[in-house]
């Protein structure tokens, strides 16, 4: 097992109003070496919290987060993260942003250049992040995460703010990098189609308090045909479960019909 959450709970407390919020309650999750794990669920169900725990940005209130058998005590280059929000340093060039995360002491520039090449942006090495489109920025963020030489790649709705077409293209890039580099990926999304397109396993989370509802193993080969009968029925099943969870939590079902796009 590459990483696991063992009976993990996370409580956020707000000292200003004296309230506590149980973001996760008793989660068990194993991330197997080489898999492409997709975490889905409506917003606020604790997907980001789960990812932040794996990354080491947050520590669990109860339970253990393990990576390669050892307790996670903080962030490390072994676990690269691609964030949803803009995370490139605007005062550095694209190349400098990637170089910042290269771990090797020597030949950082040429190494960084190689990672930029992997995402097809070596031509923009000297540009500023502000000169790039949203999709290009996220590709640089991916190059930067890869430059850390991580064993686990954690991606938190990395393409959530991009248009549909760009998202599809980047999904394919991620898939290719995952296959070529034989990496392990945990990919958070609220887009069911994206999860079905990419994952070797899909884990559905639900909210209030955040917990794991169900999981599906996908063994179809890529590129996947989402209009095939088996995929269609799986899709229906997941949408059904998402709605059921959401209704149990008092959300309007109409809202969720749009989740699958």
């Amino acid at each position, binding site marked *: 097992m590459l990483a696991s959450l063992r009976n993990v709970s996370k409580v956020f407390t707000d000292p200003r109003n004296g309230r506590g919020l149980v973001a996760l309650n008793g989660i068990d999750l194993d991330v197997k070496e080489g898999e492409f794990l997709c975490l889905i669920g409506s917003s606020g169900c604790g997907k980001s919290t789960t990812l932040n725990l794996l*990354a*080491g*940005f947050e520590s669990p209130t109860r339970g253990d987060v393990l990576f390669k058998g050892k307790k996670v005590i*903080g*962030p*490390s*280059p072994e*676990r*690269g*993260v691609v*964030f949803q*929000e*803009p*995370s490139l*340093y*605007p*005062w*550095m060039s694209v190349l400098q942003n990637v170089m*910042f*995360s290269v*771990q090797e002491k020597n030949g950082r520039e040429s190494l960084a250049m190689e990672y930029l090449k992997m995402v097809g942006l070596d031509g923009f090495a000297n540009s*500023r*992040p*502000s*000169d790039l489109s949203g999709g290009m920025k996220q590709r640089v963020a991916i190059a*930067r995460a890869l430059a*850390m030489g991580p064993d686990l790649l954690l991606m938190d709705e990395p393409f959530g703010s991009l248009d549909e077409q760009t998202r599809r293209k980047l999904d394919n890039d991620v898939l290719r990098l995952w296959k070529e580099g034989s990496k392990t990926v945990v990919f958070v999304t609220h887009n069911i189609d994206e999860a079905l397109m990419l994952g070797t396993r899909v884990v559905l989370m639900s909210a209030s308090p955040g917990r794991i509802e169900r999981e599906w193993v996908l063994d179809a080969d890529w590129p996947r045909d989402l209009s095939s009968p088996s995929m269609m029925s799986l899709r229906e099943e997941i949408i059904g479960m998402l709605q059921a969870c959401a209704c149990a939590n008092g959300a309007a079902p109409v809202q969720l019909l749009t989740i699958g796009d």
Partner: protein
Amino acid sequence: MAVATALDTGQAQFVFRPETTRLMAKGTWNAFLGIMVVVFIWWFVAEAMMFLRGVPFPTPPETMSAFWQAIMGADVHGESIFAHANASLQRWGQGYLIALVLGLALGLAFGTMPRLHDVGMISVYVFQMIPGLAWIPIAMLIFGLGETATVFIIVMTAIPPLVINTAGGIREVPAVYTRVARMSGKDDSALFMKVLLPAASLSIINGMRIGLANGWRVLIAAEMVVGVALGLGFSIYQSRYSLDFTASFVSIMAICIIGLTIEKLLFVSMENRVRNRLGLDRED
């Protein structure tokens, strides 16, 4: 003109003539109008006061010609305007330098240590609330009359904005920037130098600018306690005894001109350069 041409010929992009660009970019015309408004208000008040109260309120032309004579070497309250300005600039420079060192150090410490921030910020806010004139008795009690008291007042009024903006700038650095550095295996000093400082630099410069302006403005108050008969602020007060109001208006003008020049020339260009370096001018 260029707009019409572009539309008529169906171009997708065009550039204005250099002269037009310069005029649009610098807002020269608006600045000129702005100055005219100031002069008009001044003149109106001056004439009104002379008419209603019969006081010798210096008008813009009178002051301008006195200012010109002062530049040419005429005495302003016993000394040349340059001697006054030089004395003020030196006091202010000393005070500002001390404030800069202390303010930046405190601001950086507060910005990186939340507990220290919550405790220490209280006194900074209290200091900030104390108006320039109110520092006079305090300065006199600690240092007596003289240069040190003047410099002390400048330091005390320049420090709060430096601390507040430096600490605030660092605390407002997006968490994701820190997370990226941490997961890339950077230690505290690399995080500070490579991430926190650049990310907060605009806010720090802003604090430096406000501190500078505060220190310059408080000169007038601070030079009340100065022992020597020298300084632009001193010269303004002096009209209470000499009744030479034109001379104090000349000094007020000198203060405005020096203050604006330093702020606009030094800080605006510094800020633009940093903005550019940081790639923040095109932030989305």
